[in-house]
């Protein structure tokens, strides 16, 4: 059942590949806009890079949250999932995981290339990729709560950003902090452990909270 939902969502994403690419191009464009707005001075860009890439990843992941439940809500399949004998939390976990595979993983893969645009050293690129790898699943998991709460509301897209962005702040701080620490010649283990801790905590609690939100929204 858990595998079925992932399989289903990936299949749907494959049939609608353009959606996946839209998110990815959004990420690329936002990151590329910064040098145009603050000037091409390499030293400054290098210090800005982790923050810029992370904020862009945050926004890209958030923009695609709307798709997590709303399509299923509109065609009635979400209703059927709520009536499934299996646990709804598990199902939400599957959907969040599928969301991460479709939006998070491309971002992670794209990040090193964008880092080169900002002239990041190789080991900083590595840290950036690892921090995104640990951090983006948290974004999908927390985002699932916001997406479930705003299901079927007017202006749901803007609302979801209001709800979810403040909750993303710790991930942002430690994700970009890890890269900065590495560039400053400091250790980044603590940042990574904390990102890992956030991931574990959100793996346990977010599906449960999102499942409760879905029940509330579908009533």
């Amino acid at each position, binding site marked *: 059942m858990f595998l079925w939902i992932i399989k289903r969502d990936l299949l749907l994403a494959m049939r609608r590949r353009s959606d996946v690419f839209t998110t990815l191009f959004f990420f690329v464009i936002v990151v590329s806009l910064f040098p145009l707005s603050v000037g091409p001075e390499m030293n400054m860009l290098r210090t800005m890079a982790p923050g810029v890439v992370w904020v862009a990843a945050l926004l890209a992941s958030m923009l695609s949250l709307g798709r997590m439940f709303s399509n299923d809500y509109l065609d009635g399949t979400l209703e059927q999932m709520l009536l499934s004998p299996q646990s709804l939390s598990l199902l939400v976990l599957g959907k969040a995981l599928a969301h991460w595979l479709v939006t998070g993983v491309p971002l992670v893969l794209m990040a090193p290339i964008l880092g080169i645009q900002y002239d990041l050293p190789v080991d900083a690129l590595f840290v950036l990729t690892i921090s995104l790898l640990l951090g983006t699943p948290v974004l999908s998991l927390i985002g699932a709560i916001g997406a479930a709460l*705003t299901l079927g*509301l007017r202006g749901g897209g803007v609302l979801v950003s209001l*709800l979810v962005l*403040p909750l993303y702040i*710790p991930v942002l701080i430690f994700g970009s902090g890890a890269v900065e620490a590495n560039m400053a010649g400091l250790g980044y283990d603590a940042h990574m452990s904390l990102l890992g801790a956030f991931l574990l905590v959100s793996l346990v609690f977010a599906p449960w909270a999102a499942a*409760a939100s879905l029940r509330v929204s579908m009533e």
Partner: protein
Amino acid sequence: MAINWFKYSSPASFYSLSGKMIPIFVFLAVVTLIAGLYIGFFVAPTDFQQGEAYRIIFIHVPAAWMSMFLYVVMAFWAGIGLAFNTRLSSMLATAIAPTGAMFTFLALWTGALWGKPMWGTWWVWDARLTSELILLFLYIGFMSLQAAIDDPRRADKAGAIIALVGVVNIPIIYFSVQWWNTLHQGASVSLNQAPAMATTMLTGMLIMVIASWMYSIAVILKRVRVIILERESHTAWVAELRKKEAAR
């Protein structure tokens, strides 16, 4: 004599009880506010380091305390409403949010006013100010979510979930911001150098804290009454009440 507390958890009896309580709290709020402001601005001595500008803390500190405390209270009542399906607790949570947001804004505003003469700038990315700003975002999220949902029962429950998620996150956010702040030492000025406070200063501040409490209770009760009337407008007791009001 045992008091039947559950009696007051029904909106109708709470409505009449709170009606009697509001004037008491308004009175207490006015008295403590005048006393606190008088002590704060006329009795308390001038600070030898910060001059007269420090007096803003008589508003700033109580506002900052209330802003954080009210969020927890709001989440508590929202959670009770979600768990036990009690309408009144959810209404209470909805009523607390605007007051909490107001205090958060006040804390930020007075913080900026205090920062200008102290730091020479309206805003510094200090850990406490930043956390307070994020708290304001959380309040705004809660209120806009409830405002976007038409069905009051769904609004209550959805609000409760986001409030509880927020409450779990506040310590994490606060801790992250602290960490982030120590990493970027250069930009910040420490607020922690609280000089030994004169007794009159402390008294003035405590009285102002009580005043904020009384004010919050009065305003929140008033707002709950409005929400009750709005939601229960189709019930018999509200119709009765309307008749009585009309007869008067």
